[in-house]
């Protein structure tokens, strides 16, 4: 059996996958004194960081910053007395920039591994049964490693529908879309979840015609309807076409164009475009892992079944992140990673409360939410008080030229418990943190309202929404 230099026969913990779930778990385990290795199959140089750093969170955010700047130059700069003439949009340069940022962060993960003494192993791992791993090493050799504990953090990949298979050039997933260096003339984006909405924002800003097709009656279907409405108005104002309650039927690929047949309330329609981005969801990476041999069971929806501490049906084997269920978010993956490791180490830990995972979409205007919406809270049987505060009444938002936005706090009428918060507007993905801490500490609207918030800041909208829930807002 060939062995790569440095790889040991056994470890206290082996983590499969170096995404935000896996790499965070590995670092935490090393901090706690465990002998840890992290196996990663991504063949690209560096390769650590998973979808998040390479093809997800980070590059999209980099592109969205570029898009935002483009929009400011186009629409906003003149108001500030800055007249820009003869500027050009080069999405290729923006892509290059986003790749540099990703690279820098993936190298950062390597640095953190070295610093903490995590052994990275580049190759594809499989579970042959028991607490063992077979790793097909990069370069062809293979290695068998035993581990006292195993964490599966293999993440997820984009999915699509039959008849709409990815071809990597014209019918693409988010991964290829992040490397489009020439703006499409017309891109149809199927799916108005976070990923679809962010790409619509990016391509619109770089001059493409964009059509969003969504089967449900609202954009961002998981968000509060009023909040989603604010985004929809803004998108339409910028010329993004929105087709709700519309399903895709078929695809015809011609030499020069794609013909996408969709069906909505007004019947069938054929849309001509040159690029089709399928953003209809992601599917967990559970294949070819040897889960059956290891005795790791899946739940009814195809994710690895875990308990609140990340334990699977097999003793000593844990699963975290996208492979272990919704919501598929990087911070959820990291949190689960820490919980699983602390559980392995026998430390008291803080199991994930799914209700307390904030969810953010970084299109413009941004959307952020946590906990229950007003409708959901009522379905749960709560008597609620909803406090709303518009950005148009906040000094900082006006100074930023961002009056479109609002904060909505759904509070329990009796005790003031913060059941949920929904936000839309400039920088709300930063504002949501306060309410996350609030929920973690079981803070009520009384304490949020009584907390001194600096003026002028957007955070005052949170305080005012809390006051509004108590029936006493000052500035509206």
């Amino acid at each position: 059996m060939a062995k790569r230099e440095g790889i040991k026969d056994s470890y206290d913990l082996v983590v499969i996958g170096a995404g935000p779930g896996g790499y965070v778990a590995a670092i935490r385990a090393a901090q706690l004194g465990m002998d840890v290795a992290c196996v990663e199959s991504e063949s690209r140089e560096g390769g650590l960081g998973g979808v998040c750093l390479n093809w997800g969170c980070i590059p999209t955010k980099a592109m969205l910053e570029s898009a935002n700047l483009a929009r400011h130059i186009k629409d906003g700069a003149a108001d500030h007395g800055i007249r820009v003439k003869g500027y050009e949009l080069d999405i290729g340069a923006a892509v290059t920039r986003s790749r540099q940022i990703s690279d820098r962060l993936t190298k950062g993960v390597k640095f953190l591994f070295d610093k903490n003494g995590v052994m990275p192993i580049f190759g594809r791992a499989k579970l042959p049964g028991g607490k063992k791993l077979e790793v097909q090493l990069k370069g062809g050799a293979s290695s068998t490693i035993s581990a006292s504990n195993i964490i599966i953090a293999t993440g997820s990949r984009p999915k699509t529908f039959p008849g709409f298979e990815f071809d990597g050039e014209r019918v693409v997933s988010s991964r290829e879309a992040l490397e489009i260096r020439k703006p499409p003339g017309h891109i149809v984006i199927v799916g108005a979840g976070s990923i679809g909405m962010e790409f619509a924002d990016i391509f619109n800003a770089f001059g493409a015609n964009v059509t969003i097709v969504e089967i449900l009656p609202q954009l961002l279907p998981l968000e509060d309807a009023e909040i989603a409405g604010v985004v929809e108005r803004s998108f339409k104002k910028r010329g993004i076409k929105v087709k709700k309650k519309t399903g895709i039927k078929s695809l015809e690929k011609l030499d020069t164009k794609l013909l996408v047949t969709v069906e909505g309330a007004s019947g069938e329609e054929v849309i001509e475009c040159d690029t089709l981005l399928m953003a209809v969801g992601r599917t967990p990476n559970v294949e070819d892992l040897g889960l059956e041999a290891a005795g790791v069971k899946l739940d009814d929806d195809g994710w690895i079944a875990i308990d609140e501490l990340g334990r699977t049906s097999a003793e000593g084997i844990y699963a975290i992140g996208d492979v272990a269920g919704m919501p598929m978010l990087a911070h959820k993956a990291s949190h689960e990673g820490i919980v699983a490791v602390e559980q392995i180490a026998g430390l008291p830990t803080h199991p994930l409360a799914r209700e307390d995972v904030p969810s953010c979409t970084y299109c413009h205007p941004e959307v952020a939410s946590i906990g229950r919406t007003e409708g959901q809270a009522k379905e749960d049987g709560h008597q609620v008080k909803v406090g709303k505060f518009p950005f148009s009444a906040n000094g900082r938002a006006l100074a930023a030229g961002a009056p479109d936005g609002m904060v909505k706090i759904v509070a329990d009428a009796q005790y003031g418990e913060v059941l949920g918060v929904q936000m839309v507007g400039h920088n709300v993905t930063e504002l949501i943190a306060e309410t996350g801490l609030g929920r973690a500490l079981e803070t009520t609207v009384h304490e949020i309202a009584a907390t001194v918030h600096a003026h002028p800041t957007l955070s005052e909208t949170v305080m005012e929404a809390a006051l509004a829930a108590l029936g006493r807002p000052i500035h509206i």
Partner: protein
Amino acid sequence: MASRIVMSKLSPTMEEGRVLKWVKQEGDPVESGDVVVEVETDKATMEVEAMGSGVLRKILVQEDATVPTGTTLGVVAAEDEDISAILEESRAVAPATVQATASVQGPATMEPSAPVVPSAAPSPAGDGGRLKASPLAKRMADERGIRLEALRGTGPGGRIIKRDIEAAASAGVPAAAATAPVIDYDIPYERVELSQLRKAIARNLIQSLGPIPHFFLTREIDMGEVLKLRGELNESLAESGAKIGVNDIIVKTAAQALSEHPDVNVSFAGDHIRRFTRVDVGIAVAVRDGLITPVLRDAASKGLRQISAESRELIARARNRKLAPEDYQGATFTISNLGMYGIDEFTAVINPPAATILAVGATQEKPVVVDGAVAIRPRMRVTLSCDHRAVDGAMGAEFLATFAEMLENPLRMVL
């Protein structure tokens, strides 16, 4: 040798005390027996003396802070002595337990009004005494009348969180001792912090009215003879400067009547009844922020003059908050007189361990039928509250009859 200044348990009911004033400051020389600090217990203000000599090296609990009994307040030691071990040990407990009396809260927030933490058994959710609970948990506990002290927190670091309250509510954890559920009507209000005394009153009375089944016997007594007697006595005492009050006569008479009815001079003690062989009469005295009942010991064997002198002295000390615990604890019977406020009659809440309390109304001129004719007589209504577990109606009525008869025929007392 270093010695500690400690918040001692100065009475059986005392669970916490407030540091009122440091008489000595850090660096001041201290002799054994010097008063170092004044503390407020649930009933009185006490002076705490140094147990050793040296210098007051360290003040650990600042003025106005309330801490559980047993907390080290300060350290007296020789100037160059190493006191780090004591400090370390005290710090492990003390700073966390300190709670400013005026706990800072937003106007709409409500803190449990029950005492902070029982000293002997630190709260499970307390890290050395401080109660850790989320704002939501506090609010829910407050509204549902659940004592946070009784709960074990399952949140981070033992914090009491929402699920603990919900679990407690379904398990039926007892309501806060002195707190009925507080309903938040939308009426503006001012928050008045509870003094130690007010907390003790709340605690004691709930212990009384809650578990003690009260019943009440009311009777009107003719006070003509008593008033006459008082006039004569005071005339004869004029030279000595002594003065007998009607209340003194009531105390004396009650004590005498009780010694004739020992079954009423009792306490219900769970699996037995204690029939006291001495009559110790508590006298309810209104003070600035509450009431307190100094006890006149062995009242039955004392003469009127002595009773008068002693009760005058006790009442004065009560008003100045200078009563020691032994001065106000353990009455076998209590008299509460609101006559001077013009109250005709009222009922009083039993003051344990006694099983009875006598509520005395104002003496008023009233038309009554005497020997078949209407006459104007000074009349006084009294109500005896009885703990029905120990005293039955007939027993109470018989005692009241003797009491009335003695007041109406003071000479009978001499017999």
